[in-house]
């Protein structure tokens, strides 16, 4: 039915099967949309946020998707600025994943602010003393960059590409993509950093407070570093999951291994810096404010020293050591474990820097305050996941996201019954036009 829209030289599942898949995931999406509408029409009393938790599950999800979405800016930086040509085989998917992550982050913020119609206030009535203003500026602009990077991929659709204006527009945008990629890297550096800076400047919260360089606490640099390190792991993880679901090899090993190697060294250097930062905070910064390390990990039913060990040792050093070794990168199981651990590690880091901060008592008469989100918060946090799956499914079906797919999965024979959904064999060299061509 939709064979005219499917890229040439690739095979896709029958249209009814695709629609059924979209309908199932769409049901989850609708559940999230319902919860979102409840929050908008009835207000934030639909959540379990309170005076202790002004930031809650949404902000953790926001920081987490922004961190794992960092694979887009870092891969773009490596591809367009540092000239790592092998990454051209995965850059489209990195951009798509980044687009999903950042649009999800903006959606979550639109729910979290309670009155989205006043969302523009932060641009017009900007508080220039707030790191969150910088985050809002850079986040919005970078989403614009990701949209610009995603548009050429859409324009490569077989039918859209037939329109001369769109055909030329896509290629013109490719020609100056390095300018957009450089702008994206600049914006990402500051908004990733400022998200960490927000925690680091909280001198009333000894668990979060850090010293730093000029106006920037060390958390500013650690957040940017961790996003650049773990973001590519998320790109690899989603690529591997897509390959598993489609039962196809979609990206050449050389691209995956290069990205994994760079990510591994980034994680290793990051986790060493994080270890030094934690040690200095535990032995100098916190004691100078009258706190010991044990205070932050005891007298409550959830947060123990285990979370620190899990974040730094298990989800930090282990994936780093796997990814920096050639044997680890080439072993499929080890690679899966490494990228899962790395992504888990950065998500735990964001959890700790958002929610554990809120749980710890800061006044002598206070106790630990734990929090569990309402179903509306959970549904609206799952909403972006369903949205992401749908967008990936649509993009994979109708756009040439993976330039190597026809080469890695040649169509040998075409039974008559499949001709409706699969195009006849084509001269790959002549007909296919990967986005990077």
């Amino acid at each position, binding site marked *: 039915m939709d064979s005219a829209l499917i890229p040439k030289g690739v095979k896709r599942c029958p249209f009814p099967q695709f629609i059924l898949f979209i309908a199932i995931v769409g049901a989850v999406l609708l559940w999230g949309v319902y919860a979102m509408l409840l929050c908008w029409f009835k207000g934030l009393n639909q959540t379990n946020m309170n005076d202790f938790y002004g930031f809650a599950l949404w902000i953790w999800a926001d920081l987490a998707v922004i961190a794992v979405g960092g694979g887009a800016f870092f891969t773009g930086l490596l591809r367009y600025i540092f000239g790592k040509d092998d990454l051209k085989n995965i850059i489209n998917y990195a951009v798509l994943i980044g687009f999903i992550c950042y649009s999800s982050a903006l959606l979550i913020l639109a729910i979290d602010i309670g009155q989205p119609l006043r969302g523009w206030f932060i641009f017009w009535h900007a508080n220039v003393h707030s790191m969150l203003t910088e985050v809002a500026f850079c986040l919005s602009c970078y989403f614009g960059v990701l949209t610009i990077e995603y548009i050429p991929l859409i324009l490569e659709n077989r039918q859209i590409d037939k329109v*001369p204006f769109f055909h030329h527009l896509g290629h013109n945008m490719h020609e100056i993509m390095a300018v957009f990629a450089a702008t994206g890297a600049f914006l990402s550096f500051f908004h990733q950093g400022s998200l960490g800076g927000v925690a680091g400047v909280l001198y009333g919260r000894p668990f979060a407070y850090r010293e730093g360089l000029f106006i920037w606490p060390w958390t500013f640099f650690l957040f940017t570093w961790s996003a650049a390190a773990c973001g590519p792991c998320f790109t690899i993880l989603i690529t591997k999951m897509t390959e598993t679901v489609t039962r196809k090899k979609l990206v050449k090993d050389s691209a995956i291994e290069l990205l994994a190697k760079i990510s591994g060294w980034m994680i290793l250097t990051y986790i060493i810096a994080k270890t030094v930062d934690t040690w200095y905070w535990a032995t100098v910064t916190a004691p100078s404010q009258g706190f010991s390390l044990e205070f932050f990990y005891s007298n409550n039913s959830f947060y123990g020293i285990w979370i620190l060990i899990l974040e730094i040792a298990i989800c930090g050093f282990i994936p780093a050591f796997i990814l920096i070794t050639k044997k680890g990168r080439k072993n499929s199981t080890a690679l899966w474990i490494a990228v899962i651990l790395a992504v888990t590690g950065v998500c735990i880091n964001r959890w700790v820097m958002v929610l554990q901060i809120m749980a710890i008592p800061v006044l002598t008469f206070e106790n630990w305050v734990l929090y569990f989100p309402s179903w509306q918060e959970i549904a609206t946090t799952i909403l972006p996941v369903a949205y992401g799956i749908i967008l990936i499914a649509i993009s994979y079906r109708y756009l040439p996201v993976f330039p190597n797919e026809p080469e890695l999965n040649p169509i040998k024979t075409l039974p008559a019954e499949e001709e409706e959904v699969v195009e006849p064999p084509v001269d790959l060299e002549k007909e296919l036009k990967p986005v990077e061509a």
Partner: protein
Amino acid sequence: MFPFSFEWIWDMGHVVFMGGLWYALTILGIGMTYCIIKAAIDACRGNDKYHH
């Protein structure tokens, strides 16, 4: 916010924050304008240099 807005103050914070925002938006705007105009010209001229 622009310098002619009543809230504007000529200090480092406003210049750096708002200047950075305009700088980024200007680059994106000029880049996209260039691409769109060039694509329109190429399409009108039938320029076929990207043909596969």
